[in-house]
């Protein structure tokens, strides 16, 4: 059964068809969730949230060909919603934005880059994660996040500039 058949079955309410659609590209889904959430349990939570939303809404999906982009968009939104809710919690070990890491030049970051990324706004995090961690080009990010390419570029530029301020070091 190919993907389009599975989508048709899933639209009829077949849960196993929907699970198979996701599991057929499990690496892509899991890595996308992991890039945002940074750990296994939260990534699996996001994937669970995603599949519940997919199941509830797949009947409304007008173009079966767009299943994978549609479902990834939902996964990204699910991850972002979770991160938004946690925004008030400051990462452990960072007391102020101006913190500089003395040995940045030796490439020994005091914290994982994800810790610093969480200091950016959710849109900047999203754009940088998709661009640099998921290897997506501007056009693909634009499709997935549904904002113009120019906005994607501007979010990446501003996000990197802020990362520079947070981490320190050379940035041109």
């Amino acid at each position, binding site marked *: 059964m190919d993907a389009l058949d599975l989508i048709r079955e899933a639209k009829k309410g077949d849960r196993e068809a929907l699970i198979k659609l996701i*599991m057929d590209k499990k690496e892509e889904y899991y890595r996308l969730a992991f890039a945002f959430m940074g750990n296994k349990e939260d990534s699996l939570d996001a994937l669970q949230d995603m599949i519940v939303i997919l199941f509830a809404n797949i009947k*409304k999906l007008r173009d079966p060909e*767009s299943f994978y982009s549609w479902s990834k968009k939902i996964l990204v939104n699910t991850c972002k919603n979770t991160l938004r809710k946690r925004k008030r919690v400051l990462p452990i070990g960072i007391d102020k934005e101006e913190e500089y890491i003395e040995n*940045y030049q030796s490439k020994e970051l005091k914290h994982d880059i994800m810790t610093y990324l969480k200091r950016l706004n959710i849109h900047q995090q999203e754009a940088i994660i998709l*661009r640099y961690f998921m290897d997506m080009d501007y056009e693909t990010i634009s*499709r997935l996040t549904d*904002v113009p390419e120019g906005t994607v570029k*501007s979010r990446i530029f501003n996000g990197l500039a802020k990362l520079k301020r947070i981490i320190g070091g*050379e940035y041109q």
Partner: protein
Amino acid sequence: MKEMKEILIRKKDEIYMTQVPEEMEDCLRSALQKKRRHFHKSAVAAVFAAVLIVIYSFDSIAYYGKKFIGYDNMLYGNLKELFDEGRGQEINKSCTFSDGLEFTLDAIMFDGNELMAFCRMYHPEENLVNSGPTPYVDLIGINPLGYDRKIAFGKGSYLDEHTLEYIYTFEAPAFYEKWMKLNIKYRLDNNMEEKTIDFILDRSKAIETSVQKDINAKVRVGDCEVLFDKITASAMKTYIQGSITPLSDEAKKKLDPESIEDYEKYGMTIFLFDMVSDKGESVDFHEGDTKASMGKVGFINKGDALPKDFNTLEIKNIRLKRHKPMEKSVDISERTENLKVDDDVLIKSVYFEGDTTCVVVSSRGIPSLELYDGDEYMETINSIYPDLISPDSYEKQVESEEPVDRVFRFEGKGQNMRLDIKYIVYYSYSDETISIPID
């Protein structure tokens, strides 16, 4: 910038090392069975397992004479054809790190714009799928700053648990370069070990430029003048170079917003065009760089290789697409009339037909909308990429001089229904077509 990129690339490699948990399928099934949104989190610590990369494959790799074998999972289209034909330059040089990891530069392939390095990593004892080496790789020549590694095309594939292959892409070395070095930095415990593979760039093996031609054609698009300067193409890629000159102060701010205020007022403008050959084959352009200078915006649009058989190329549907960000939310849970969202956007009414919510939006440009039920994303209307998200293409809709009423209907209604107006899209088209005869 290089430092920052290096950190980000390293993190990317870490993410690709992460293995999919065995329980993922059970989790998905359990979520659907329980049909609830939130689940108790297990106290399992996150572990970065070591998988360097994208695709797991047991295809064999070898280098037979002049034909490259391997790298199958990472190449497609015209690049795959070139690779299958054995184009490029054989290098076949290795270095070995103190833990036994062997790094081999199998070959390079380059044209006037980019250089691709085909690399292989082998460890006789370690299971690389679990431990995943993440070396930093730099390309250096006479130019001491080296050549930028392109983020978008760094991909890898496992051949077996001890071997993986990786393609790195860099900007092409300058014309004066000959003696090149691939510097490989590899972290072992807390030390960074560095090795170098030297090679001589054999320009006779370069993928030759097939087309290099001045176009020198100007067209008017909205309140801008577009100059198509020249076309350069090889079997690897096609480049169209030119510049856009705004013909008014407002056009300049639309084209190249200099401040946040300009951006909020006018949004961002993207320059687009279609290219087809006289045989009807189209060339997809999916990358582009722009640079503002001296009151103009220079552009380089990058596309696939040109088709093999044609006499003339045609550039048409030359257009400027402007997205003005809105980021406004409208409550559509109850009847509403004449709600002004922006100078160009009025929600004329929200009403209900049975279980359907109807929203009448009046605007000159085309509104792009997202529907939410509470925090839950439902659907996108008039996505800027309608082929992917919403099949109702609006590409052919044009900006009206007077506001137009558009009625949007959504299944369902409820107290948490919300419509996000993400942006308004404005198009300016040129009626002109540019013909490029190729000798």
